[in-house]
Every structure is written in C-alpha cells, then in structure tokens.
C-alpha cells in the first residue's frame, strides 16, 4: 500500500515536471512553469521522507541544510554574466549526486541492507550510472574552469591525448566488464566488485577531464548543453538502479532538453557534434593571423561621437551583441543607448545569434537583466532579411557570428555557418578592442569593408560614450 502511494506521488511529480517544462515555451508562462516544476520536486521529497522509514533524521536535516544553504547563496549572488559557469557547476553536481547514489546502493548490497536482490541488471545499471555521473561531474568542473578563467579558454592538447582517452575508455569498459562478470558472485565475494567500481569511477573522472580540455572557449555552448544532457541521463540511469519511475522520467526529460540544445548549437555553427568534441578548433594558432591589417586592406576608424551622429540620424538601428558584451558587462549601457535612440524615434532591434555568448540564450538573459523587452530580441532567421533596410548595425563584442567569410569563402573553416548579415546594413559599426580574430581564429573581412567603421574600445566605455554624446546632441 505504502509503495503504491509512493509510486503515485512520484508519478504526480513527473507530471508536474512535464507541465512545468511545457510552460517554458513562452516567456509569459515560464515563471509559473518553474514554480510547478519545483512543486513537483517538493512533492517527491516530502513523499519520500514521510512514506519511507527514515532512520537517521539528523543526517537528512544536516544534508538538506548544508546543500540548501550553498544553493541559495550561489543562486542569489551569481552575476548574470557568470550564468554559464554556474549552470556548468550545477550540471556537475547533478552528475556527482547520481554517481554517489549508485555507489551507496552498491554499498547497501555489500552490507546486506538492500531491499532487492543483486544480479545482472543492477550491475549494468550501477556501472552505467557511475560512469555517466562521474564523467558529467569532472567534465562540468573543467567546463566551469574554462568559462570562469581558472583554466585557459583555448584548447589544451598534448601528444597522445587521443591514445590516453582511448586507453581510459578501454579501462572503463574493462571495469564495467568485471562488475558485470562478478554480478553472480556478489555480494558473497564483494572485493572485486568494489575495486572495479572504484576503478571505473577513477577512469570516468579522468575521461571527463580529457573530453573537455581540448575544446575551445567558443564551443562551450555545445559542451554545456551536452553536459546538461549527460546530467539528465545520469539521473535516468540512477532511476534504473533504484527502479524509480520519477527518476527515469525526469532524467530522460532533462537528457532530451540537453540533446535538443546541443543539436541547435551544432547547427548554428554548421559543425557536427563529433567535430566539436574532437576539439582543437581555433584558439592559439589563430592569434598568428593577428591584429595587423592585411595588405591592400584599410580600416575605417570611428569615434563614439561620430557613431552617435550616425545613430541619431538613422531610422532603424540593429544591435548585434556578442560575448564581448558579456565580458565588459555592458548590457545596461547598451539598453540606455537604445532608450536614448528610441526617444528620438529611432527603431531599435537586437539580433541574437544562437551561439553568441557562452551558453544557449546567454545574450537574452543579459539583455533581460538590463530590462530589454524580449519582444525586441530577434533570432537569426527573423532578422536577417532586415539588414538591407537598416541604416546602422552596431556590433558589440561579436565576431565570428558576423563574419561574411562564412557565406562567401569556401575555404574558410567557418564556411557554411549561418551568420547575421551585418555587412548588408548601410553602415556597420564594430565595437571591439582590436582587430584580433575571434575564437575560431579566422580573420574577419567585415572589419575592412567599405561600409564598416571600427570603434576600438572596451564595449562598456564605447557604448556609454555613444549614449553620452547622443544626450549632448539632444540638449544642444
């Protein structure tokens, strides 16, 4: 009877998760969706606490207080610009929790306190859960390091990294094989099983690191999405271990979410997942192509004052934000500039490339923080036809996503990637600190185009300068 009630409440929370996620389809309903999903979680937790026999309340209270406290602090204090880092860490914790729960389950079998018999299926699911959970954990921590800067953003590689990765994979496979082979003798003969499980965890820990370090900073949106998917799959496999429907359903939903985002990100870069994961794209060597102006090309430099004049006399301005905006934390300045322009009757829109920033939707969150209405944010397909009728496109810290080489130069590594056609606007002002290429390492011909003006400056200062000078013109 109790199990039936418990199963039904788990079903209820799964339904709440599905409704919650469904409401994410519109910014208007999304917030209540999140509330529904958290309600689902509460239902599952409360049901577990009251319908199972809790032996050690102090343990549980301590765990929830410590974890909850850390969670509240992290969620409250994080800067919106640092959101990718935080999501990476949370992904990692999700993976770690799944791996640990499976470890604890194995330990209960050793102690003989497990509720079910051991056998082939548990040994497979426990092994999978440890593998996926641990890879998610260490991969996410490395991703966090790359995003927040304590690990270099450029791809890290060394001779033999592929060989080492393959060896670790074989090692992990071997450990899983041992666990499965020992399933029948377990728990009577526990030592080999425990050793294999620990070995599997260690191999998975290294694997996660090796899988993420060779990937460059600009590919992080793909990595974060993929790790998000893994954290879901880890929860789902743990559901198989515990025979728990709620875990399987919710884990699978999250796995699907991460997978969809991964595919969208890869499409937006016109690259396959394998290409991204094998890594080494861009970074270090690109700098050699460097900041010098290529022969036969000239750069038109401009100032904030001139840009302000251009913008004031424009009918339509499109702002193209990129990662540089996040780094400079210039979202509030950009909003202020747009406000000033709109006050003069200039139409202002924002063009958001799917991979602008370091995680899916990164720019949208930053601009939302600065109070820019989501109705002014346009996706690539919606806005590209508007550039030819736009007087001024202002590119704030974006590079590869506006590189015309993706459209024109068949030899370019980024050829075929969908871009924002900024070069089709009457004038494009590019705010950027230097002429250096973006993360792809590909030089950008947009910088040398006749209708492009370069504004060499920090994004925040430049935009604030433009706004200041628009205000002065209004007052004059």
């Amino acid at each position, binding site marked *: 009877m109790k199990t039936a009630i418990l199963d039904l409440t788990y079903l209820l929370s799964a339904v709440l998760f599905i409704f919650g996620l469904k409401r*994410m389809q519109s910014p208007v309903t999304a917030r209540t969706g999140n509330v529904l999903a958290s309600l689902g979680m509460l239902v599952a937790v409360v049901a577990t606490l009251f319908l199972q026999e809790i032996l050690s309340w102090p343990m549980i209270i301590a765990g929830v207080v410590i974890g909850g406290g850390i969670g509240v602090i992290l969620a409250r204090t994080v800067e919106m610009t640092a959101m990718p880092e935080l999501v990476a860490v949370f992904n990692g914790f999700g993976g770690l929790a799944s791996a640990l729960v499976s470890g604890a389950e194995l330990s209960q079998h050793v102690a003989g306190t497990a509720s079910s018999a051991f056998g082939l299926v548990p040994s497979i699911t426990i092994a999978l859960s440890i593998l996926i959970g641990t890879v998610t954990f260490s991969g996410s921590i490395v991703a966090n390091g790359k995003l927040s800067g304590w690990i270099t953003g450029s791809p890290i590689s060394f001779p033999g990294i592929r060989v080492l990765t393959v060896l670790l994979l074989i090692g992990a496979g071997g450990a899983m094989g041992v666990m499965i082979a020992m399933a029948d003798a377990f728990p009577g003969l526990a030592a080999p099983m425990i050793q294999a499980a620990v070995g599997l965890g260690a191999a998975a820990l290294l694997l996660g690191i090796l899988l993420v370090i060779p990937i460059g900073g600009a590919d992080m949106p793909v990595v974060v999405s993929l790790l998000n998917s893994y954290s879901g799959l880890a929860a789902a496999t743990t559901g198989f271990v515990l025979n728990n429907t709620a875990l399987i359903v*919710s884990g699978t939903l999250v796995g699907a979410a991460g997978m969809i985002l991964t595919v969208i990100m890869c499409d937006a870069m016109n690259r396959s997942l394998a290409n991204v994961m094998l890594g080494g794209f861009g970074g270090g060597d690109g700098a050699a192509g460097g900041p010098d102006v290529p022969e036969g090309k000239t750069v038109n430099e401009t100032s904030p004052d001139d840009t302000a004049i251009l913008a004031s006399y424009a009918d339509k301005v499109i702002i193209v934000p990129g990662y540089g905006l996040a780094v400079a934390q210039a979202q509030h300045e950009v909003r202020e500039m747009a406000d000033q322009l709109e006050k003069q009757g200039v139409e202002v829109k924002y063009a958001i490339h799917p991979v602008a920033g370091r995680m899916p939707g990164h720019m949208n969150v930053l601009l939302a923080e600065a109070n820019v209405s989501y109705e002014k944010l346009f996706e690539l397909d919606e806005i590209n036809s508007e550039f030819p009728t736009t007087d001024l496109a202002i590119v704030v810290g974006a590079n590869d996503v506006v590189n015309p080489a993706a459209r024109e130069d068949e030899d370019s590594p980024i050829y075929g990637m969908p871009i924002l056609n900024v070069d089709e606007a009457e004038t494009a002002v590019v705010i950027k600190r230097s002429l250096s290429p973006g993360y792809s390492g590909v030089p950008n011909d947009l910088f040398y185009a006749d209708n492009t003006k370069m504004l060499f400056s920090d994004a925040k200062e430049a935009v604030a300068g433009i706004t200041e000078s628009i205000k002065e013109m209004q007052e004059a």
Partner: protein
Amino acid sequence: MLNNLIIFVLAAFVGTEILSKVPQTLHTPLMSGANAISGITIVGALVAAGMTNDPWSVWIGFGALVVATINVVGGFLVTDRMLEMFGEKKRTSSPADADAAQRTNGTPA
C-alpha cells in the same frame, strides 16, 4: 527492467516534443530549470542517507544529498531569478517610461 526501458523511451519522445518548441530567448532558463529537475536524484540520496544503518551507504548518501540539494535549491532559485527578469518588462515598462518622461519634463530645455 523492460517496463523501465519502455518508460525511458516514451519519456524521451515527450521531452523532445515539448522542448523543441522552447524559443531561443528561454534557452538559458530552460537549461538551468531542467538541470534542477535532474536533481530528482535527491530522492535516491534521501533513501541512501536516511534509511539504512550501513555507515558506508549513509556517508556516501550524505554526500549525494548535499550536492543534490545544492542542485535542486540553487537550480530552481536561479531559474526563477532569470524568469522574473523576463516577465518583469511587461509590468514595469510603463512605469519606467513614465519615469523617463518625468525626468525629461523636469529638465529645463
């Protein structure tokens, strides 16, 4: 086992169906919200940490409980913080405009 596999496959279809319609604007909150949902592992952690006397399980489960709670609590809170900003505009756009208008009125031309 077979039942679980069936649930897994069906859930994958439901997830793909619902989530492929989420607009780009909400991709970050979707990711952090989904991630909080994957913290459902907390259910397993509760069982491991609280419902056995085996010290190894209890301590491993305790570790799982702490990280899973961080994931759940932090994930839902930060998603709410983001979505609050998305919803906000509708409500505050008019007061903000009024504010701006007042300021211009106040400045001598």
